[in-house]
Each structure stands twice: as C-alpha cells, then as structure tokens.
C-alpha cells in the first residue's frame, strides 16, 4: 500500500497537510485560549463571499477568499468592539452576510461552477504546486508575526483590560490576531474547507491543553496533534475512498473523544473510594 507515497498528488497532499498543521496548530492555541472560536467560525464562513467573488470575476477563488477573510476579520473585530450590539449578534450577521454574497456571486457566474464543493469541505488530493507555495508563504507570515508579537498576544489573550492600562495598543493587536486567523483559514481551505476549518482550529489546541499549562509547549503539541489528525485522516480517506476533509475531522473527533474519556476514566479510577 506504500506505493501511494509515490504519487505526485499524494506528496502535495502530505505537504499541504504538514504546512496547514503548523498554521492551525499555533493559531488554534490562541483561538481556544482567548475563547474566540465563534468569531473564527464567522470569519471562515464569511470568506465564502470571496470564493464566490473569485468565480465571478475570474480570479483564483483562494485569492478571493484571502481578501474576503481579511476584510471580514477586520470588520468583525471593529464592529464587535465599537458597536453596542452583542458580540455574538454581530458575528452571526457578518457570518451570514459573507455566505449570502458568495451565493449571489456564484449564481451570477455563467456556466457550471466546478470544485465549489471542495472549497466548502476541502479536497486535499487536488492541491496544485502553485497553491503549495501560497500556503508556504502564509505559514511564514503567520510564524513571523507570532514570534514578533508573542508577548503582546499572550497579554491580550490573558487580560485585555490590564493590557490597555499598561499602554498596549490592544485593539490593533487583537485585529492583527484576527487577521492571522483569517490567513490560517485560507491555508486550511484545501485541507478541510471553510465549513470544517473550525474543528482543526479547536481540537488539536484543546487536546494539547490537556497535557500542558504552558502556551509554547501547547503550540508544539497542537501542531503535532494536527499533523497526526490530518495524516491519519488523509490515509483513511484514500483507503476507504471517502471525502478527505470530512474524514480528517471525524478522525480528529474520534481521537479527541477517546483521549478525553480515557483520561477521565483513569483519573476517576484513582479515587480513594475504590473497592477491591
């Protein structure tokens, strides 16, 4: 069965999974720790508008999604902070707006829109070389910003009020963090698609949190878990001939649930009330 490694598309798929795992493993730690899962889901879904736009004006849908996800990240960040509307209301509205725009653009596009499904649910077996390069560049950007702003991201994630008091430009830093989430979503489009991306932003990081209290170690573990999930899912989908994105997610969920319940079981059997 190891001849599958020889296929070019498989090599690209594994490379994409590896690169995507680096981005989502690291950024996922912020998403989970700062509890911005819902806003991240909103950015991901709103980026569908960009995919539609890409089809409509004839540019790469991934490029369209990049532009749209950045715009929606900034819009969400600014409008959740500066309007009096509840944050989840703002997110819900923008989430649906992006998707609606995408649907309109696609219906305006003449002819058959191929591959639409793969942007929604991912199709890692069809990553072209050019897109690998884009993923690599985005990875480098994400890593560089995290290294540069590590202490700032840590501070605003932990205690935004105090960060403001000590003179940190917290709103700008928060918007930069949201933009990194937007870029991570773009990286993940091929792997699991915009609808499923939120699972890979939360499961590896949340699992990593089970094993460490330290954010840096959490990032390393989260990347490793993400690699395990995407690779396992990829091979299972190949062997069982299932949709790759969905298989990766289901694989992650099964491993996550198994680890969590095993740990729970182990800690509860250690209770002193054991009967021999």
């Amino acid at each position, binding site marked *: 069965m190891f001849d599958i490694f020889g296929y070019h598309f498989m090599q690209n798929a594994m490379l994409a999974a590896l690169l995507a795992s680096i981005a989502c493993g690291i950024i996922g*730690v912020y998403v989970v*720790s700062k*509890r911005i899962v819902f806003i991240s889901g909103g950015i991901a879904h709103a980026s569908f508008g960009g995919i539609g736009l890409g089809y409509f004006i004839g540019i790469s849908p991934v490029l369209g999604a990049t532009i749209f996800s950045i715009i929606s990240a900034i819009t969400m960040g600014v409008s959740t902070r500066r309007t009096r509307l509840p944050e989840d209301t703002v997110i819900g509205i923008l989430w649906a707006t992006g998707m609606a725009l995408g649907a309109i653009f696609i219906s305006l596009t003449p002819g058959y829109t191929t591959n639409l499904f793969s942007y929604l649910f991912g199709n890692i077996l069809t990553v072209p070389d050019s897109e690998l390069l884009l993923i690599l560049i985005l990875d480098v950007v994400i890593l560089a910003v995290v290294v*540069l*702003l590590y*202490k*700032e991201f*840590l*501070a605003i*994630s*932990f*205690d935004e*009020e*105090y*960060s*403001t*008091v*000590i*003179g*940190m*430009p917290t709103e700008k830093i928060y918007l930069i963090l949201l933009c990194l989430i937007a870029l991570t979503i773009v990286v993940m489009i091929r792997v699991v698609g915009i609808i499923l991306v939120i699972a890979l932003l939360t499961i590896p990081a949340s699992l990593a*949190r089970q094993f*460490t*209290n*330290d*954010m840096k170690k*959490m990032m390393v573990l989260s990347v490793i878990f993400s690699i395990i999930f995407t690779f396992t899912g990829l091979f299972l989908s190949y062997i069982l001939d299932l949709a790759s994105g969905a298989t990766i997610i289901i694989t992650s969920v099964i491993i996550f649930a198994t680890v969590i319940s095993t740990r729970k079981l182990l800690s509860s059997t250690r209770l002193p009330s054991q009967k021999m």
Partner: protein
Amino acid sequence: MLKEKEVVKFENVWAYYNSHPALQDINFAIYDRDFLGIIGPNGGGKTTLLKIILGLLKPRHGKVIVLGKEPREGRPQIGYVPQKSFFDKNFPINVWQVTLMGRYSHTGLFRRYSMEDKKLAEQSLERVGMMEYRDRQIGELSGGQQKRVFIARALSSNPKILLLDEPMESVDPKVQGEIYGLLKEFQKEMTIVLVSHDITAISIYVDKIACLNQTLVYHGPKEISVEVLEGTYQCPINLIAHGTIPHRVLKEHD
C-alpha cells in the same frame, strides 16, 4: 516648611457616563507617600475616577495632572492592580509570565523582556512572597495568592503610585491583613491609593480617606464623620474608628 509633593491633582473635574454625571466638580490632590483609601457606593464614580487617573478616559471639564504630566504620560509610572480578575482560570499562563507583563510599559512593542525586566519581576515576586510559585499556573492559586501576583505585576514596573481597585474583594480577613502589611511596607517607596465600595475594607493602615459619590469629600488623616459617610452612602452606616485596634461602632437609628 517644605510643601508636600503632589502626585495627582484634580481641578474642577467633571465626567459623564452617557448623559449622567459620574463625577461632579472634583477637586483634590494626592501627595507623595500617601496611603489613601477612596470609598463610595457602586456607581458612585470610582471606576470613572480610576480611568481618569490612568488616562483611559478624558474628563468633560477640568484639569488632571499625574506626576506633573498628562495622565496618559504619567501612566507608565503607575502600578495598577485591577479589581476582579476576569481572566479565564484555565488560561495557560504561569505566575512568572503574569508578573513579567507588568514590565511591558518599559519594554515596548516587539521587544523581548530584558535581563533587567526579569530581575525586577523576580524582586517583585520575592517582595510579595510568591517566588516559590513562579512556575504555577495562575488559576491553580488561591484568591489571596492571585492578588499577591497581581500586586507583584504592578510592582515590577517600579511605580511611583500603586493603584488598587477593590483589593480586598473576595479575600478573607487574614489575607486582607497580610496584604495591608505589604502595602504599608511599599508606602515607604511609593504612594498607595486604593478604591473600595466596602468601608470595612479600609483598615487602620490607611492614612487618609476620601468619600466619593459623584462628589468627593476629602479627609485629613484619622478622621471621618458619620454625616460624611451617610451623605456618601445615603443610608445609616457603621462608624470606623482608627486606632491601634480597629473597631466599629454602629450608630443608632433615629
């Protein structure tokens, strides 16, 4: 006689919350090495006052001077201990990383914490007696220990003024005493200002008291009258007497 140095000065300060006045014509000064307790009911403008001192909020009218500068510019020399810790108890951060955050105003964007930052953070943890907990996750500590860490974080910026918002909330009396002991110690080097809605939290250690309920009544050392407190709280109130042993006398209702 040498005049005492003013570290904070309010002149005819008015501030509004939406369209309601939160502060009305506030005039007062805080002097170097004061230990001042500002008390007042919730909604009496305590948070607004703090925000103005920190330069996070501009008053509608009036003038505020902090350490001889605009409040915003004076801010790096204020150590702030926030009220309730609204942080996520599960957040992956340890005591050491929290304390280092206090150095930010001296370190600045992008830069890494220097050896000096680390030395000062270490000293601050030593002073509040939390050095041995430096690797512990913050949420694992008790409320009193967390308070000490947040005080260490404020201290690590080498402040001239230490500003504490409701420092004794959800802290038991024994720990309150310990924290007051620490603050009294720090008073030798800096001005201490604490804000509370709970008059019982203002202990014998506090030298001066100001009552705040939109307007501010400032008291010299060791004096506070029932009329003033009742005016502030709009209800009958316990009397605080300062002395070596703190005791309270309940004023009879008319």
